């Protein structure tokens, strides 16, 4: 069953098309990640799906309701956590939670079960103003507020941006727990490494979806072989590898270069010999499994 069905959805601001003819389905109960750099159109897409923005073209349904015609029904079914912290900074943790509960016509007690595990972490700061919380705490409070009305589907727009690595991990654990409660979770992130926390991901770039699939399928479909290469003078190495006749793509990645070769039967000795002929010294070559970033780079270059 699908929680979200998107068909040819488009939205542009003047000449810039923020979301360009996107179609995809999000299954009920999965964690679905939109992964892409800043400006890929993730926020615009989320704002359309949460009834804050009217699309130019195309249609979409959330939990079976049309986002334009039946937006009122959608509003009580979705939980939305915008990218920017947008709770009342001058209200305390408790007041914020109470306020959003009453806006949705419910109480904290009614849905306490759902937020219990997250709320206990906030409990010591109950009387503190939301503006005085740390980044990780703010994010937990925002999640609680988005959950207070027991939504069927949760839209989290870059929830981990600007949050420390420990809190980020904690946050993903919480999402795993919410998934077990049967809530569909749609999340966007600019961090490629968070892809493996999602069930399925969609890679987004300039308003378009490059690929939608399970992470392992995306990686399995990586064309050719991938090598991590190092030598003494890296910038000459980069140039030489790009000039190599079988070169598919070369990108610097940390302290090495990720080089992808178009031949399927290539071995690291072939590359070693080529580099030696170019008089490189201290050459290190290793065949590696492509990660999500390699896949993204590959899809982007097409």
């Amino acid at each position: 069953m699908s929680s979200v069905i998107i068909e040819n959805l488009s939205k542009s601001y003047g000449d810039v098309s923020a979301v360009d003819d996107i179609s995809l389905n999000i299954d009920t109960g999965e964690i679905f990640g939109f992964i892409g750099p800043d400006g890929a159109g993730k926020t615009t897409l989320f704002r359309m799906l949460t009834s804050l923005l009217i699309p130019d073209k195309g249609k979409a349904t959330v939990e079976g309701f049309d986002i334009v015609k039946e937006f009122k029904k959608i509003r009580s079914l979705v939980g939305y956590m915008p990218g920017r912290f947008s709770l009342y900074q001058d209200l305390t943790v408790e007041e914020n939670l109470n306020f959003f509960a009453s806006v949705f016509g419910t109480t904290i007690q009614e849905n306490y079960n759902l937020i219990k595990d997250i709320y206990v972490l906030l409990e010591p700061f109950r009387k503190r103003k939301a503006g005085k919380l740390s980044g990780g705490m703010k994010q937990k409070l925002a999640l609680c507020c988005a959950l207070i009305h027991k939504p069927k589907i949760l839209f989290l727009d870059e929830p981990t941006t600007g949050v420390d690595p420990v809190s980020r991990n904690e946050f993903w654990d919480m999402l795993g727990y919410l998934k077990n409660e049967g809530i569909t979770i749609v999340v966007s992130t600019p961090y490629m490494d968070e892809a493996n926390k999602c069930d399925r991901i969609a890679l987004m770039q300039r308003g378009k979806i490059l690929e939608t699939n399970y992470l392992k399928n995306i990686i399995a479909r990586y064309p050719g072989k991938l090598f991590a290469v190092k030598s003494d003078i890296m910038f000459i190495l980069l140039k030489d590898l790009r000039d190599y006749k079988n070169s598919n793509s070369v990108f610097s990645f940390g302290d090495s270069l990720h080089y992808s070769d178009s031949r399927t039967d290539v071995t690291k000795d072939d590359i070693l010999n080529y580099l030696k002929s170019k008089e490189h010294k201290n050459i290190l070559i290793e065949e590696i499994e492509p990660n999500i970033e390699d896949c993204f780079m590959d899809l982007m270059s097409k």
Partner: protein
Amino acid sequence: MIPLIFFMPVLQLLVLSNAATYEIKNIKFNIVDYDQSHFSRELISKFTASNYFVLNDVSFSVENSEESFKKNQAKLIIHIPKDFEKNFRSQGLSGVQLVINAEDGSAAGIINNYALNITRDLNIDMAVESSVMPEPVPMINIDYSNWYNSELDYITYMVPGILVVLVTMIGTFLSGMNVVKEKEIGTIEQLNVSPIKKYQFITGKLMPFWFIGIGELAFGLLIGIIVFKIPMLGSPLIIFMLASVYMFVVLGMGLLISTLTNTQQQAMFIAWFFLVLFILMGGIFTPVESMPAWAQAIAYFNPVAQFNRAMRMIMLKGSGFKDVLPTLYFFIVYASVMMSLAVWRYRKTES
């Protein structure tokens, strides 16, 4: 913020109603006396003896005297020509020139008035002394009395006006900054995805300011009556009835501004623009009657002018419910239009 909301009006009321008066004292003046006669000295002593004028300089050249205008030392030059007394005695007619610095038009008008009163006094004295009244000139003796403010007390008619300004400012600014602030800090996103209805949102936004505004008015009226001894001839109940609708006019105006703008700066600018127009054309500091016809027509649609007039009518004249009924109708229509526009302009969904 709460102490500020109550402190500011008190300060404003105390300072403005005491400071913003039309009375001018210690007006410095210069004398250019070419006559040096008994009458000319009499004229000068009349001026110096009054509370309003202080002699700044005596000279024998108008040009020199005009220098002190430029240096801002004097506001008035009294120029007494040669043969001032002689002409008066022989022909029963003589002239004095008053040169007034009219950089500030309204101050010049007041100085002119004072000076005329003094010279009129002198006129009578001189006429008696020189007994140049061959035949009595027929004259209408005018006896006047000022109703509703017999002493023409400035504070009495200023305080109601200042209260109107206060309530207007509170209503427009507080509500004008409010929704746009939520836009700025992003909280409006969280509310917009919720099933909360537009009218619920708007009501929630306005009610606190409505109570603050009415509270301020009550507070201001108390200070006016206790501290300034302002008469309250009419019923305070009618004032509050008008105010309760008037608050919706100004709150609606602020809210409309708030929904049309994206930042507090924009909202502030637009709110100021309209408030300055409304308040300056509201008949509080200058009478509406002195405006040209087109401005008077605009003033009719100015809620500040309407409320100011109604407040003075009720407090100083004791006007009743029937007298202010047109104003009440006007407010109801105005408030409905403003509120409908604001609710209509507030969008939970962007296109």
